[in-house]
């Protein structure tokens, strides 16, 4: 079996808060163990989550636990050194922050740095903020190859049978209770029906992990071990 390169997913505050609120931190460990996807967040996003007045205190223990167990990591120079071996140009934290500061004129600090990392590392970001993406597009800023929503990950977990119907409905119920954003197709339907209508942007492939053209096109993940499911 070929050793597949590590794929980074960079998480933005809103998506990460939803995952933590829904208690779906298992996503991070499944992504790394079965698909070689390592979950990261920028320091700026960590700050945003901890400073979130509505959910900060609620999700902080879960975030701390996930960080301590390295299910998700703060993107550090050592990670970039490792990833840069796959890229034509070495990328540093300073590079990301410089681009992040530029994007930060137009969008919030967290998403600015998340998308800046996605662009420079040419990897997917996970963010629910369509308005920010549209703003960056309007301003002619480059976007990451793929932008996933938290519900793409919830849908992926469901469609790949990592979570059952009952648990998925629980995710939906919890996020509705918290007044959280969700894709239109899920607002007035069950998880099972709504997620199929939504058009999940994350799927599996027998070939290589890859993204089609455009930030909203599906991203395909290849199993590290095809027999793992």
């Amino acid at each position: 079996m070929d050793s597949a390169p590590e794929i980074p997913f960079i998480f933005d505050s809103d998506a990460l808060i939803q995952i933590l609120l829904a208690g779906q931190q298992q996503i991070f460990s499944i992504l790394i163990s079965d698909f070689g996807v390592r979950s990261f967040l920028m320091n700026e996003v960590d700050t945003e989550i901890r400073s979130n007045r509505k959910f900060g205190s609620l999700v902080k223990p879960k975030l701390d636990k996930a960080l301590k167990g390295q299910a998700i990591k703060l993107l550090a120079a050592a990670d970039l050194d490792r990833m840069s071996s796959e890229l034509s140009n070495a990328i540093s934290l300073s590079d990301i922050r410089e681009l992040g500061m530029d994007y930060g004129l137009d969008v919030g600090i967290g998403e600015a740095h998340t998308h800046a990392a996605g662009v420079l590392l040419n990897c997917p970001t996970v963010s629910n903020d369509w308005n920010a993406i549209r703003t960056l597009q309007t301003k002619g800023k480059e976007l990451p190859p793929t932008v996933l929503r938290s519900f793409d990950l919830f849908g992926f977990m469901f469609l790949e049978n990592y979570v059952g119907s009952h648990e998925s409905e629980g995710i939906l119920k919890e996020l509705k209770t918290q007044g959280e954003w969700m894709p239109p197709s899920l607002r007035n339907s069950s998880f099972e029906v709504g997620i199929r209508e939504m058009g999940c942007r994350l799927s599996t492939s027998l070939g290589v992990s890859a993204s089609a053209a455009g930030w909203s096109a599906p991203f395909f993940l290849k199993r590290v071990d095809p027999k793992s499911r």
Partner: protein
Amino acid sequence: MSLRTVIEGAGLGLNACADVLGVSHEVFQQWADSQKEIPPAYASILAATLGVKPEAMTSRVLMSARGSARIEPAAIWFKFSGDQFQEVDRESILTVRRLGHNANQLEQATLGQPNKSWEIMFQNITRQVDLQASPRDQGKVAAKAFCELNQFGHGGKGSSEILRDRLRSQGILLIESPIPNSQVEGCSFYVGDSSAQRPCIFVNTYKTTWFRRNVIIMHELGHALFDQTSGGEIDVLADVSDSVMVKSSLTEVRADAFARDTLLPQKLLLSLCNQFGIKPTTMTPQDLAVLVAESGVEKKTVVQVLFDNALIDDALVGQYLSYDIAAILRQTTDHALTTAEYIEKIGKDAALVWENKRFTSIAKRNLLLPVPYVTAVLDAVRTFSVSISRAAELLMIDESLFFERFPAIAQEVSE
């Protein structure tokens, strides 16, 4: 030297700084004590707000190694270190300074660069001033130049109605917001990082009239114009153009003369007297109310200008100052109405358009943002020049509050 030392040196608290950045107190404390490095995005905002260089926030080790670790607080914090100022004053100014940084950033996002028209205007004015002349003459010459450049006093009309728009269109940040329990009546200082500094005029609206604020604004503009290197000027209650009080400070005399001659130059005063058949030596309360309403300048200043121009004597000063013109003024101009009276006049629907939509919410000291600034942010959201999350940062409110305050716009630009 830690970030904590810089902040405490400015007479500020850690929590106030955390609030103005919109970050949790716990996170900020870790930054302040160098347990964690402050991310550059936050460091640059804090540096601009405190008035120090961004490198001072992050390059601690390097600075120490070069033996230049001592970071002095910015000039404005020296000014606010006196006993007469309280925590509320310093924290309000901190929020104002964050707004100054935000205004620069908004213009960079929407126009590509901050509006620096004020710089050319200031140069044009100061070029005409003889710095060896008396402070009063300096103020008067500058006022004349200002009026010519900004079409103030044209057509025999007062300019108070247009002064706010004029100043803002030149890139001057003008904030009128209430700070109860503060001695500060007005102040001026420069905000923004060193490459994009702009004058900021702040007026405490708590228990003041529109007519008095006009004088304070122009007085503070006089300071911004002449006293650029002083690090800022603060005027406390009963300090700005107060009655016919004799002022000894050069800067205050000059700023007073500038304010009076921009708002009510002799030519305009005489023109108003002619238009309304007013004889300065035999004025009734009604006459005085007309001069106040037409010039947009408070009673005390109108009387002072009459006196300065030798149109009345000491005895008449006392007599005119004793006139109670409040009731007459309310019948003459909307600017004299109380909030309740104004709402009744324009109708509740019109009055509620901006109700509770302009106050910041992230810091303990909430600031009332200028309507043009909030409008500019909302326009930028509508055109996808800035995202909603960024708009919330610029308005210094939580993102969720943006959705509550501006649901129609949020819906318009959401998926």
